């Protein structure tokens, strides 16, 4: 066992403590939690502070010092109380908490993955965090911070050896001897493109939304006036100086958001490495924390390949391998945050095919022959989402004395978007070595594919209106353990057949779906 782990004997269980360096992890962990969860609650106090307190700098320093000292004391107390134990019943027991003492029990059999993260602050002392992922639940996640890499790998080996003993059919990974059959490295230049493609900039903007009024006032006083003055003096643009100043400011804000997004992408996916062997992925990435994620293909419920507008311009796709997330959207989001989703951030179309072929050798995005939706969908959507809104705009033009051609423009744009969305809808069924797969495509300007094996479906549903039934049409909805597949307006007999066949697969296949 590692020399960084001091051991102590308490009661009949063999309780152990992690390295004292783990205090660093607790400091970072509680700081992040404070910023994420606590800061918003302190907003009213912040407003009072900004508006009522006179000697702001002094009191801010006092509050900051108190916060830091409290954080340090709390982290040290947390470390003192943090003990773990591997019981003879093949369980990980964690004792933790300062004011509220908790014991977390995680059975080896429930552990889905053992991930190893190497935060930058542990690099000089060669320690890692050993993260035990339980199925879909964040609260059940157990982390052993500040253990040696060898110990973490031994834990991983021990757990998977136990799982292999319990389920001999299941393929077990061995991280120490993970000699990949296939591998993929994504350059940091490509990762930066993910920053441009992703919505992280929007998330960053949302984070500053509560302060937007203060920010706008500040910008108006400090920057716009100066930029306006600059344009007036240097360029002599008296009339348009204010407009130019505003445009400059917006451009700067957009640029900042983009830079922020690129920065966040690099922090998350820096030096991205992906290995695949024996139906198992191993991914290592991260700037501040080298996070190692391993995922068995059996656990993957569906694979999503998506490309948004920016992705189309850059000719890049994002691929996500999704695991089960019980408990709805919140758990799904939590699963993503919890890094249980394997995200391959930026791939070109050849790489998408190549990665997907590691898992599904039959997959070739260019040869998927999709069955589209019936034209009735186009007619309905054109009526509801193009004609009716344009008629309302036309009415508005008459009442408001605007140019009536505006409504024609609206009609053309909406009709174009509706047609694009209609053309994107499609499904494709595939049989490969007695296994049945479905690919569902949707999108508008971008495109979104979901690939899954039919037996993993959780439930199936058909939806139809009176007019659809008269036209012999149905919409198809298949619930998966991660997301869903929806295919509107297909022929009734096709929808019925897919539902019956999906149910047959789900009910007759003896393989473990989760």
């Amino acid at each position, binding site marked *: 066992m590692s020399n960084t782990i001091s051991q102590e004997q308490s009661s009949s269980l063999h309780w152990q403590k992690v390295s004292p360096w783990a205090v660093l992890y607790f400091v970072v962990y509680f700081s992040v939690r404070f910023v994420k969860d606590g800061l918003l609650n302190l907003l009213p106090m912040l407003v009072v502070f900004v508006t009522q307190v006179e000697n702001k700098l002094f009191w801010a320093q006092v509050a900051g010092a108190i916060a830091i000292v409290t954080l340090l004391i709390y982290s040290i107390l947390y470390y003192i109380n943090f003990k773990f134990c591997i019981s003879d019943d093949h369980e990980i027991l964690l004792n933790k908490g300062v004011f509220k003492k908790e014991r977390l029990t995680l059975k080896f059999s429930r552990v889905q993955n053992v991930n190893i993260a190497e935060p930058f602050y542990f690099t000089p002392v060669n320690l890692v965090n050993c993260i035990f992922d339980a199925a879909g639940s964040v609260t059940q996640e157990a982390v052993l911070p500040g253990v040696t890499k060898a110990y973490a790998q031994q834990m991983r080996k021990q757990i998977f050896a136990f799982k292999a003993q319990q389920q001999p059919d299941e393929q077990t990974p061995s991280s120490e001897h993970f000699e990949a059959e296939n591998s993929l490295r994504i350059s940091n230049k490509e990762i930066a493109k993910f920053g441009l493609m992703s919505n992280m900039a929007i998330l960053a903007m949302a984070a500053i939304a509560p302060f937007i009024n203060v920010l706008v006032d500040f910008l108006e006083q400090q920057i716009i006036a100066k930029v306006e003055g600059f344009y007036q003096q240097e360029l002599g643009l008296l009339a348009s100086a204010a407009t130019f100043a505003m445009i400059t400011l917006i451009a700067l804000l957009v640029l900042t958001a983009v830079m922020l997004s690129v920065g966040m992408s690099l922090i998350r996916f820096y030096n991205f490495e992906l290995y695949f062997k024996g139906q198992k992925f191993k991914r290592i990435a991260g700037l501040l924390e080298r996070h190692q994620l391993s995922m068995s293909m059996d656990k993957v419920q569906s694979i999503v390949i998506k490309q948004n507008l920016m992705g189309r311009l850059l000719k890049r796709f994002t691929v996500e391998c999704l695991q089960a997330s019980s408990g709805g959207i919140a758990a799904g989001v939590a699963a993503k945050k919890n890094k249980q989703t394997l995200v391959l951030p930026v791939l070109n179309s050849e790489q998408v095919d190549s990665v997907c072929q590691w898992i599904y050798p039959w997959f070739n995005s260019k040869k998927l022959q999709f069955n589209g939706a019936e034209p009735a969908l186009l007619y309905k959507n054109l009526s509801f989402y193009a004609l009716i809104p344009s008629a309302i705009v036309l009415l508005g033009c008459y009442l408001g004395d605007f140019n009536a051609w505006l409504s024609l423009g609206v009609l053309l744009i909406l009709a174009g978007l509706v047609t694009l969305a209609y053309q994107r809808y499609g499904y494709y069924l595939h049989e490969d070595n007695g296994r049945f797969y479905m690919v569902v495509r949707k999108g508008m300007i971008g495109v979104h594919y979901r690939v899954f094996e039919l037996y993993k479906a959780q*439930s199936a549903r058909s939806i139809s209106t009176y007019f659809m039934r008269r036209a012999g049409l149905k919409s198809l909805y298949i619930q998966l353990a991660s997301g869903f597949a929806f295919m509107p307006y297909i022929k009734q007999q096709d929808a019925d057949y897919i539902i*019956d066949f999906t149910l047959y697969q789900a009910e007759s296949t003896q393989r473990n*779906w989760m």
Partner: protein
Amino acid sequence: MFDNQQVMDLPKHSEIQLNPLADKALLHVQLNWLAFYIPFCAVLFAVCYFNEAFANKAQTYLLIGVPILILLSMLYNALSIKLQGFALRNHDIAFKKGVIWQQITILPLARVQHMEIHQGPIERKLKLASLKLFSAGGVSADLQISGLTHEQCKNIRQFVQNYRQDDTPAQVELANE
């Protein structure tokens, strides 16, 4: 490419014989709506009583409109309950609902993660209950059947709990109860 469309004769979900909900299901729905309409009418009455100007303008419309609204919703409820049905098969449970958008949902029993039986005060009085079946990944319950008797709910729960995927017992009698 998937090319075995007609190889096997699959059990067809479109041929399932659905069982209607309990007799008192309609009464339960109507009472639920009544519990909404009574306070709604009380609020309208109070507004008319205290605001004479509003009363003068809207009284006639309200006196005609509100009873029509209540009548329409009662008719809608009757139709909605009539169109609902459920069935328990060897390996799955099916539920049909919807007036404008008709849906039929089939949930394989092997995918049920957990179940809940709910009984509100009106349901308790009418000896009815609602059954919720959850699978992985759904936003809320995958299947929610209101208007079953409490006994039916307990039987279904027992059936689902006893279910084993490799068994093929003839346990469908329950669906015909």
